[in-house]
């Protein structure tokens, strides 16, 4: 009998969290719903501690317990985790609670977890990683995707006829009206996928506005965004679309493409990203996703292999900077120099950055093994940490670590 395991996507939105999952035997992505009768995907990002017995509860249970105990829940656990270590631990417990909700996956090994967030930065990634660690949750691979990237994974995991000529996503609630247009350029191999994002404050706020007027505004925006060319799919998400008011626009959109509505697109997109991590979908092998967070340059180092100089690939363009990291072990030549090569993906421009390790111990040629760690501190700052590993018992490690920062130029 095949061993059962699962990959998970968790969307952390402003109003709450959603958890989607996919078991290896089934390959269908499902989102946990509180109710079987209707879609209730959103789980409040709240916690409550009983003042008497100190028992903690989360989500809707926390809200119910607080009401009973005449107390208050701790809201917005993500914000709390960004502010204190206690907040990190509480968020970790919340994740533990979340992972226990879908009964289907209880006791199953989780092979990959992807978080989707509206905006991703290094700090939030570190906080989420610490939260997962603090709760003792052991998952071998954890990644992060922005909503743009989550949309990419969702859209391209559908049948080709639903994305071939491009896809548009409208997201609408009281605080935002955002449009994301996804375009696939299949002339290149791998194909380039770009997402353009735009906000329309004219549609805000949703509550209290004349709905017919809103519909007319929406129609105008939709006509502009969809253009006259072919379009494969349109998605509508957000609380504003939970009631029907956009009949005129809907009629127009249905005449242009297949239209879908749902409130779990981002968590499903995160789960599709997780299936890609474990190589079920291989999307990342066929497509290069580009948005403002994507690396526009291929990063490699010059190295000698079998007597010839070659480029040893470190990171490929297309990766989101917050997920991009790599480690390489190489032997240092007597010049104690490492040449990092940055190649623009759109052009032939090549930039060579020489890192000099003058403080590293002098040893014979190729008698120093070094560990190179590459990661991004910010979107355009590549950090390279070089650690002296010595040369076994022959030349013990000095323990030295040198850190260099390379500012990437616009590619």
């Amino acid at each position, binding site marked *: 009998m095949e061993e059962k395991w699962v990959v998970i996507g968790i969307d952390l939105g402003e109003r709450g969290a959603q958890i989607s999952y996919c078991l290896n035997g089934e390959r269908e992505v499902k989102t946990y719903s509180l109710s079987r009768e209707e879609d209730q995907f959103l789980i409040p990002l709240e916690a409550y501690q009983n003042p008497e017995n100190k028992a903690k509860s989360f989500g809707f249970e926390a809200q119910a317990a607080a009401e009973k105990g005449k107390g208050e829940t701790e809201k917005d656990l993500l914000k709390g985790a960004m502010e204190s270590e206690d907040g990190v631990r509480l968020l970790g417990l919340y994740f533990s609670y979340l992972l226990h909700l879908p009964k289907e996956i209880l006791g199953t090994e989780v092979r990959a977890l992807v978080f989707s967030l509206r905006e991703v930065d290094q700090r939030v990634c570190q906080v989420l990683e610490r939260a997962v660690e603090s709760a003792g949750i052991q998952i071998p691979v954890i990644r992060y995707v922005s909503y743009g990237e989550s949309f990419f994974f969702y859209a391209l995991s559908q049948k080709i006829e639903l994305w071939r000529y491009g896809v548009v996503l409208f997201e609408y609630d009281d605080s935002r009206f955002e449009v994301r247009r996804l375009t696939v350029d299949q002339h290149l191999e791998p194909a380039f996928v770009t997402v353009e994002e735009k906000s329309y404050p004219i549609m805000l706020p949703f509550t209290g506005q004349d709905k017919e007027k809103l519909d007319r505004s929406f129609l105008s925006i939709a006509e502009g965004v969809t253009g006259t060319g072919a379009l494969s799919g349109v998605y509508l998400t957000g609380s504003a679309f939970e009631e029907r008011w956009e009949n005129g626009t809907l009629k127009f959109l249905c005449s242009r493409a297949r239209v879908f509505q749902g409130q779990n697109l981002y968590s499903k997109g995160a789960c599709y990203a997780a299936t890609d991590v474990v190589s079920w979908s291989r999307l990342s092998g066929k497509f290069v996703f580009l948005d403002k967070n994507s690396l526009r340059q291929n990063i490699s*180092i*010059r*190295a*000698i*292999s*079998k*007597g010839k*100089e*070659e480029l*040893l690939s470190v990171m490929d363009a297309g990766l989101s900077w917050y997920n991009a990291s790599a480690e390489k*072990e*190489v*032997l*240092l*030549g007597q*010049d104690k*120099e*490492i*040449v990092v090569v940055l190649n623009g993906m759109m052009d032939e421009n090549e930039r060579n950055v020489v890192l000099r390790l003058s403080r590293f111990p002098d040893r*014979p040629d*190729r*008698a120093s*093994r*070094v560990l190179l760690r590459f990661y991004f501190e910010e979107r355009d700052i590549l950090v390279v940490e070089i650690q002296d590993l010595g*040369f*076994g*018992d*022959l*030349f*013990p490690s000095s323990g030295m670590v040198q850190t260099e920062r390379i500012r990437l130029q616009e590619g």
Partner: protein
Amino acid sequence: MVYRCVGQRASVPYLIKDAGIGIYSAEELCYYIRENIFMLDRDFFTDDLLSFMRKELILPELEDKLSHIIQYGGSFSDLVEELFNTVSFVSRSELGTIQRALSVSDKLGAYEKLRIKGDFLMKCGRPAAAVLSYRKAIDGMDEKKMPRETARIYHNIGVAFASLFLFDLSACNFEKAFSLCPDTEDYRIAFLAAKRLFLSDKDFKSYTDREAVAKAELDEVEALFGAGKKAVEKRKDERAYRSALKLLDKGDKEAFFKEAEKILIDWKNEYRGSSAKEIWDKKT
């Protein structure tokens, strides 16, 4: 420039018993063989070593090729060539040099191989093990028939003892080297320098007056000390020590002791790495 690594780094090293050295990678293996080419032969490629290549270095094809060479009676030179070609640790011309060295190695005496091993151990920062190798070399030599060669080894023992801060033993060996080769002034200067380090200023003065040591020789010893002092001042631990002393000057005794302890621990570990205990056990 950097070089691509071949295979994996082992979690459990292969121990070269004679040298007491653990090998963690294919490159380290090549380096060891290159530096000790005069001491090794076909027996170096044991079943354990081949198994290590397959299981720890994850180089099964290399293991297969070497096994094949051994099975069909290939020479040590054939094995070395196959290993170095796979790992690409040296250039073609360097490999040619190694193979020529192998043919010379067959003609080397046992004491020369032991001396070379001692020199290698010194380069690896293992002076105590180096002394043992040098002593084995001397045991097999007739100092009357080979005074220069023997003197050279006594001198090397003196250097090894000096790096262990055993200056009295260092001085004895330098003196022995000089007695075998009285025309080699370097041995005399080394002896005096070791004496200078071993004796107090007053005792060294008494010694030099008593033995009527020439001023030129004393000047040369002082010049050596001056150069040594400059080299020490550049060391990281010396700078750390001077910074710690500043803390004491400021009256911050706690911080000074904390920093001083860190420096002492590093020095102790460095000394222990030279296996001082080993030399004492063998000496007595």
